[in-house]
């Protein structure tokens, strides 16, 4: 019995964690030991389920549980023992790291030291494989796009359109098949476009999490390929003002980025906390190994504000963010225009506003209720080179308004059962802003969706089980004028049930296995239904199919993790198999469309049956006390099973390895390291000849160097990072870059990052 409890405790610490503790100085290496005792009898309690933030473990035969790698600051403990739930807060900022907590049959727990209540955050409780980049890891890659920052996670690649636009790809899926949760809100921009990057400022993130299974039960359609969770930091609760300034400079493109954040909590009003943040970025023409990439400059400025009122059993928060970017699109390939910050047509200008209001209430010991309302407005203007002075008029000007409402009810019990249920609704309106003097690519539309789900989870020391069911209904009404000023469109409704079942087995202290089988669905998007015409950006003629049905998929993903007792080896391997019924893709047709502009290859949106399978492996070796090695591999195999052909735009095999030397901390410099990295991207050989403008490019190797340190001055801290990407200035092209037909990818890029925290 004791063995299994220890196994459970250790195994749960191996579970990918999502820390909700606020860390002001980034010290997240502390070990917390808590002993659970009965409030009445003072007896130690064995087998209590203790949650620290979002980590969970069971207390052992002496009532102890241990949490490693916690951040300094306040920790909120949720203890379920017998029939009672105790909640308490621990001030983990001092030197004390062992605490005794007495359970109580009342809901009010006994707090030790300061009573400063933590924000209540919903944990990412999922059976699916998740991988997280924490603040320390993000600080080394800040200033780049969201997709670029996720590249170190195996299984994640990106779909690029030149150097300024990148969409994240999870296990071969992108766009409408990957859901991005921006501070708990489903990000709604024109995701259907391959050249539409997510409109999020990664500087707001304290953590980026990638969920690699179909999470359709929890989040609805669009999570058929996976979910990217962008979480801002938890607001402070220590009565002080915190500030952070991040600066980034990059040689390639002569880019500069600055982001500042100010957050605080008033001692006189400890329940209230706030944060304001802003980012400004600018870059000029990027440089490939041998020449400049003309018109690849970018400018961005974003800001956000958040406020929260937090009590022991109730909290309410509000969040507003504004994102504004201008990007140049590569043009005049074959001509080295030199460096410039100017952005001319073709270019994009996108503004995204998001407002979120959320309230969270503990109805009693066991029931928690969360209500959320969000409003988003996305304005996308795309400018092409036009005749008659119309270059300053956008060729595409779309305004997308989305409102979402979510209600979630959770039931926790000390017996290990947890029930989560929810309802969500969305109302979306897309309208082309008149005055472009050219027919819009997609029709105007109104989209209404509603869904309800239930997830039952059982957690024990040996295993966890989860089963979920969801029903969604979607109604789409589209109407637009085509280039001949004729009305087109239609009304469609879709509905679907999705289900998932999963298990985690804590085999031993060293091994654990998790597996999940789930269904997912996705309705065809407006461009897949109604595209009709020349897609200027892609130089091809695309035709939609308004009779298409929903895409349904079945995904089975398993993750095996091993960590050896001596602690110098960690391995994690994901394997997945996904079958699609009605997979929607752009199929190149044999014929050519003749028009006065020339002959264009003709692509038709079609549905077929597809099979995706693959594996992502991570290996970590602590070779010496100060030398770490990490290797990852990502392999995807996808096939159009109806005609046994290969699917387009599937990432090729990717291997990454890193060797890091950690220097000893000195009085002044801490967490100093030097690392060298090597990436190998194989040539995509699973390709149908003649299905593309050009065959896939050759395989390539990229070397990188990184170093960093952190200087402490009392309460203040300065972190410095230097990174060199593509160290050898290798000239290469990537299959997943849609501009590989015209130009090389980026050459050497030397970046300096400074992060100053007060």
């Amino acid at each position, binding site marked *: 019995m004791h063995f299994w409890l220890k196994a459970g405790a250790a195994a749960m610490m191996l579970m990918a964690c999502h820390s909700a503790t606020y860390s002001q100085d980034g010290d997240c290496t502390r070990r917390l030991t808590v002993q659970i005792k009965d409030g009445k009898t003072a007896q130690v309690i064995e087998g209590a389920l203790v949650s620290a933030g979002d980590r969970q473990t069971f207390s052992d035969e002496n009532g102890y549980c241990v949490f490693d790698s916690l951040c300094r600051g306040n920790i909120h403990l949720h203890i379920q023992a017998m029939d009672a739930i105790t909640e308490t807060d621990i001030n983990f900022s001092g030197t004390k790291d062992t605490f005794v907590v007495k359970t109580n049959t009342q*809901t009010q727990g006994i707090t030790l030291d300061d009573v400063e209540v933590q924000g209540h955050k919903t944990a990412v409780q999922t059976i699916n494989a998740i991988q997280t980049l924490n603040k320390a890891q993000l600080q080394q890659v800040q200033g780049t796009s969201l997709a670029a920052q996720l590249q170190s996670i195996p299984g994640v690649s990106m779909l690029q359109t030149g150097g300024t636009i990148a969409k994240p790809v999870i296990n071969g899926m992108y766009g409408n098949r990957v859901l991005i949760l921006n501070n708990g809100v489903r990000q709604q921009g024109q995701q259907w476009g391959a050249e539409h990057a997510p409109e999020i400022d990664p500087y707001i993130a304290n953590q980026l999490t990638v969920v690699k299974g179909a999470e359709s039960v929890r989040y609805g359609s669009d999570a058929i390929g996976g979910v990217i969770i962008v979480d801002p930091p938890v607001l402070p609760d220590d009565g002080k003002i915190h500030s952070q300034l991040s600066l980034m400079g990059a040689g390639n493109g002569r880019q500069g980025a600055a982001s500042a954040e100010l957050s605080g909590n008033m001692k006189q009003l400890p329940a209230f906390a706030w944060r304001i943040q802003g980012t400004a970025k600018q870059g000029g023409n990027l440089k490939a190994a041998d020449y400049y990439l*003309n018109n690849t400059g970018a400018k961005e400025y974003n800001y956000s504000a958040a406020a929260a009122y937090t009590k022991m*059993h*109730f909290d*309410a928060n509000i969040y507003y963010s504004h994102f504004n970017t201008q990007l140049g699109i590569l*043009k*005049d*390939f*074959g*001509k080295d225009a030199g460096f410039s910050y100017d952005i001319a047509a073709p270019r994009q200008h996108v503004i995204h506003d998001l407002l979120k*209001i959320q*309230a969270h*209430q*503990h*109805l*009693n010991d066991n029931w928690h*209720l969360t*209500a*959320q*309302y969000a409003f988003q407005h996305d304005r996308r203007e795309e400018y092409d*080179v*036009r*005749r*008659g*002075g*119309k270059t300053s008029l956008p060729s595409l000007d779309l305004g997308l308004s989305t*409102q979402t*409402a979510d*209600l979630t009810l959770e039931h926790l019990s000390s017996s290990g059962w947890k029930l989560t249920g929810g309802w969500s*609704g969305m*109302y979306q*309106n*897309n*309208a*082309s802003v*008149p005055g472009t*003097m*050219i*027919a*819009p690519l997609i*029709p*105007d*539309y*109104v989209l*209404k969706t509603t869904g309800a789900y239930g997830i039952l989870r059982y957690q024990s020391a040996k295993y966890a089980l989860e089963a979920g069911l969801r029903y969604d209904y979607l109604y789409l*009404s*589209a*109407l*637009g*004028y085509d280039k001949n*000023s004729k*009305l087109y*469109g239609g*009304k469609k409704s879709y509905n679907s049930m999705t289900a998932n079942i999963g298990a985690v087995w804590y085999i031993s202290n060293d091994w654990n296995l998790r597996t999940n089988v789930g269904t997912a669905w996705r309705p065809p998007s407006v461009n897949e239904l109604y595209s009709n015409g020349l897609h200027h950006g892609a130089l091809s003629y695309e035709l939609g199919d308004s009779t298409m049905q929903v895409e349904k998929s079945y995904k089975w993903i398993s993750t095996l993790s091993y960590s050896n007792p001596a602690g110098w080896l960690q391995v994690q391997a994901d394997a997945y198999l996904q079958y699609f019924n009605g997979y929607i893709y752009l199929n190149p047709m044999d014929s050519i469309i*003749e*028009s*006065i*502009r*020339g*002959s264009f290859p003709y692509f038709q949106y079609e549905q077929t049956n597809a099979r995706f399978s693959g594996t992502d492996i991570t290996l970590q070796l602590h070779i010496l006390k100060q030398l770490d090695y990490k290797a990852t591999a990502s392999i995807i195999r996808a096939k159009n099973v109806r005609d046994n052909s290969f699917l387009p735009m599937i990432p090729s095999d990717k291997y990454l390895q890193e060797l890091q030397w950690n220097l000893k901390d000195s009085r002044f410099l801490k967490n100093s390291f030097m690392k060298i990295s090597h990436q190998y991207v194989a040539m995509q050989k699973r390709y149908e000849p003649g299905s593309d403008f050009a065959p896939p490019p050759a395989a390539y190797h990229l070397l990188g160097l990184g170093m960093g340190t952190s200087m402490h001055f009392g309460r203040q801290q300065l972190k410095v990072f230097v990174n060199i990407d593509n160290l050898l200035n290798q000239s290469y092209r990537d299959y997943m870059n849609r501009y590989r037909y015209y130009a090389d990818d980026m050459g050497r890029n030397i970046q300096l990052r400074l992060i100053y925290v007060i």
Partner: protein
Amino acid sequence: MKEMKKYSLNIAAALAIVATLFLASCNQDGPTPTPENNQEEITAITVSYVKLHTDGTPTTDTASVTFDADGTPTPGTLSLSSGNSYLTLVTFYDHDEVLNTEITEEGTEHKIFFFPSQSGIINYEYNDHDSNGNPIGLSGKTTILNPGTISLNLILRHGLNKNSSAAQGWNNTDYIQAGGEDDANVSFNIQAE
């Protein structure tokens, strides 16, 4: 459930706010698009060959080919006389509107290239120039050097760098290197006898 009563006011308020904000917007019906005054397309092109006297003055002998929105030429083949020169006029239409004025106004960004399927049959010289002195191609002179039947590909290029070496001449096959994009790309046959 005594505790529930304490919070029921909070919950009711939260739900009421969420419901009101959400349902208030659901009263709109379908989308109401506005038609755009499409001014972008080249919907037709006419290429006229006006036979010239030996002194260069035009005759009334004209052969024309018209391309529709699909790029289909009518007639498919023009008969021209070997040994003669022709004033070559290209006119671009957007429905009823002639676009040539716009093209001339933005002449530095436009150039017409002519690509014969065989060399040695025709030669072309530009008559017009933009504000930088570079040719455009709305007006020119085609000389039929030898008899033969060729296919002639006419490309209106927009946004190119006219100073680039790849943009020089009337039939420079490297024209893509000069940048820009095709606004028109059509072909027809010339039977020179």
